[in-house]
């Protein structure tokens, strides 16, 4: 800042001012606030419908599930039942394909904790899904070594064969895309820990290594034909 030259200048004139262009006026009367139909909590609990729903039975408490759940709970100290949240959710997801609101309630009841404590776990871990995947769920590794080995091309090829549209899926909130027929679904996963045999993918619980884009067709048909 330059020093004042003339005593007659008022202090106000000496200080430079930030001149900001006036923003376009918004007519408040025209703004309509739309209240969302469901709350944020409900949005996080619900399972959006996908074509894959037909592949899985609806959630119900079967004797086999209860038996397995009790076995899992017994692995942890008496007063630390909460530890069994992950194992129980795995049991549910394994049998019913995804974590539905009813199953969250059931797990919470089984472990004597509030449902929100189960929900916070479900929404955090990428390993739990809240919507039905296809009958064959393909998880392609996208991390560095696999990406260098061509996992992007593999994913493109898979989508091309199965007719899956991945444009709507985002890596964080909604990574799973299901084919229109409901048989296949794809997802980009982070490192599957087999970087030496890149690119790799998991189909349901089976691990496949060295699946370059040209092997995608054979991989899928080995499942469809079996």
């Amino acid at each position, binding site marked *: *800042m330059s020093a004042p030259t003339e005593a007659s200048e008022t202090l106000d004139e000496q200080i*430079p*001012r*930030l*001149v*900001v*262009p006036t923003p376009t006026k918004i007519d408040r009367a025209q703004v309509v606030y739309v209240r969302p139909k469901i709350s944020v909590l409900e949005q996080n609990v619900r399972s959006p419908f996908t074509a894959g729903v037909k592949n899985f039975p609806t959630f119900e408490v079967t004797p086999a599930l209860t038996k397995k759940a009790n076995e899992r709970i017994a*692995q942890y*100290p008496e007063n*630390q039942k*909460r*530890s*069994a*949240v*992950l*194992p129980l*959710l*795995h049991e549910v997801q394994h049998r019913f394909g995804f974590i539905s609101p009813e199953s969250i309630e059931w797990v919470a009841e089984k*472990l004597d904790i509030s449902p929100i*404590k189960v929900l*916070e*776990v479900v929404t*955090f*871990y*990428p*390993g*739990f899904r809240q919507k039905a995947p296809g009958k064959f769920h393909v*998880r392609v590794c*996208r*991390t*560095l*070594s696999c*990406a*260098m080995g061509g996992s992007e091309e593999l994913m493109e090829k898979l989508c091309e064969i199965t007719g899956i549209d991945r444009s709507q899926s985002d*890596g*964080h909130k909604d990574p799973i895309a299901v084919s229109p027929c409901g048989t296949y679904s794809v997802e980009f*996963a*982070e*490192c*599957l*820990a*087999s*970087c*030496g*045999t*890149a690119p790799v993918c*998991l189909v349901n*619980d*089976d*691990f496949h290594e060295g699946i370059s884009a040209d092997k995608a067709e054979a991989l899928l048909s080995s499942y469809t034909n079996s």
Partner: protein
Amino acid sequence: MSDITYLPGKEPHQREHRLIFQNVDRKGWNTSLKCYLDNGGYEMLRKGLSMAPKDVIEEVKISGLRGRGGAGFPTGIKWGFIPPNNEKPVYLICNCDESEPGTFKDRYIVHQDPHQLIEGMILSAWAVGAHTAYIYIREEFPEAAITLEKAIKEAKKEGFLGENILNSGFDLEIYVHRGAAAYICGEETGLIESLEGKRPYPRIKPPYFPAAMGLYMCPTIVNNVESLCHVVHILRMGGSEYVKLGTPRNSGTRILCVSGDVQKPGYFEVEVGKVTFRELLYDMCGGPKDGREFKAVIPGGSSSKILRCDESFSIGRGDDAQQLDFWDLPLDFDTLAAAGSMAGSGGVIVMDDSRRMSWVLNNITHFYAHESCGQCTPCREGSTWMRKVSDRIEDGKATPEDLKTLEEIAYQIDGKTVCAFGEASAWPVEAMIDKFRSELLEQTSEDNNYRSEERQAQEEFLASVR
């Protein structure tokens, strides 16, 4: 043991020294208990149980075994941290979350040799006085979880697990706990939170050192799969014999996992510090792909700082300092730390001259933005910002100034978070910009320098007051 033969095409390189991976890819080998017993399995358990627990710890201390999970902390010293007047139960956790990009050593141990891990765990539990142990296995190993549970059942039937193990009066139960695909569960306190059934938000240290306040606030020892397996071999060889492997302060063998642009990627178990990058990448991995040249190497999982292949480093202090080319660097904990990077978990990712560094940077920042747990603000926000800026660079929409922004974000995450994830996400970015600045700058342009009217006015104003 010379009678071991391996599957064709999977034979170990002559420079390898196999301890942990002795049975990996072995001809006629399977995961059954019988197979393990026929090859001298659980012999060390008998030996270990006849020793006093503190002697086992002493043996591990003498061996100088450093944790193989990433930090390289001495295992024996870690075991000694359990408070001496402790009256609570002690827990042992095997960290099989192996989620560091570039690392795939634990996969082969748990898939092909589960009993070795179980034997190591029983010995470690005996040493630290734990009666309950958990194997925290990542969700992406569904097959291994089944293999391990089967192996535990078999071992229990033979009296190696359960009550009164081999009539020693020692009880131990091992359980398998599956994670759910979160990278942060590899951090030991995050893993403990996850085992307690919560979101894996890491705990702050101090005071929550697992050895004093771990699982259910009881003393807990968390060790990597490979570290636990080494315990078996330390008892077999004796600590003073084991320490002769490798180099001083970097004893034993470790498994290096090489991936990326080499002729023969794979795993190599070598004596620590006995193999240089030249030997590893040219002799063992068969050199670069046809017509390519090596450009850069990430030496210890994607969190470690990248090294250029044409760099040279000054290693050592004072008179001992010596100038070493990248190719002559031995892969041990101390040398790589002196070279400004780290040995980490042993995942070596190699890039050749066909790779654009902006693409690599983009891939890495996407990974960390996805995996940040969201507990600390610098990391949660910063990792996403870094992803966005690197997206711009990759798309050719960045200005030279963006590089500076990226660097600033990275340095503001580094050291300002509860767990080491902050460093893990910031270090690769810092190093990448530092070492490949000119290449990244080529992808930026002043033409992208879009300024809104407000921003322009603001900048003019700031220039006038300075």
